[in-house]
């Protein structure tokens, strides 16, 4: 959602400071948009794969 403001100079200052912070602290980057459908599908697939891998390891360990 776009920012609606009656204080444009203040809004611009906040945007500039956020941008400066993103440049000075690249590890502290906050995503500017919520995750979309594709992001969620990829995350779920990754989580499912990790669970299957964990189960396989447990089964192998139990076999020994």
């Amino acid at each position: 959602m776009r920012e609606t403001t009656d204080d444009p100079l203040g809004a611009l200052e906040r945007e500039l400071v956020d941008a400066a912070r993103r440049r000075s602290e690249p590890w502290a980057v906050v995503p500017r948009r919520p995750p979309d459908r594709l992001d969620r599908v990829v995350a779920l697939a990754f989580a499912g794969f990790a669970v299957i891998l964990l189960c396989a390891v447990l089964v192998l360990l139990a076999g020994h």
Partner: protein
Amino acid sequence: MWEPDSRTDGELLVATTDDPQAFAIFYRRHVRGVLGFFRRRVLSAEIAFDLTAETFAAALEASPRYMPRPEPARGWLYGIAWNKLHEAGRQGCAEDTARCNLGMAPIALGNDSIAQIDAVAGASALLQRAVPDQRRAASRRRLAGGARDEVAAVTRCSPSIVPAPVGLSPQGRLEYARND
């Protein structure tokens, strides 16, 4: 209200790489002057604000390459402003390349915003504090002379500025920004 800072503009630009607030101080010192500079040269407050935002974004983007020099950094800033005005006049619309590169969110202006911009720019025009540096920057870029008082043929804002329709209520502006 913010505390005065004893650092020079050049020192603030050099410090920006590690201290984002240093750029905020630099911005507060010059935003009124830059806004007045553009407001005297383009036809609408929205475009003046658009170009101001792009100028400061370009300054932020270039700040890691800024080298301290004897002359005030204000001249460097107005050099960027001149370039942005010249480019916008050539293309017919303000650009938002620096803001896009920095990942800055678009700003939707309300009716009260326009009044605020005009008030700030009007006050700045009366003060005329930045004119010597502007002239120096202009002569460096061979834009001096009549160009200073010309109105640039900029007809559109960039996508980074959303001018709200005139007469919309605050709730209406919010809906407008949500739907746009």
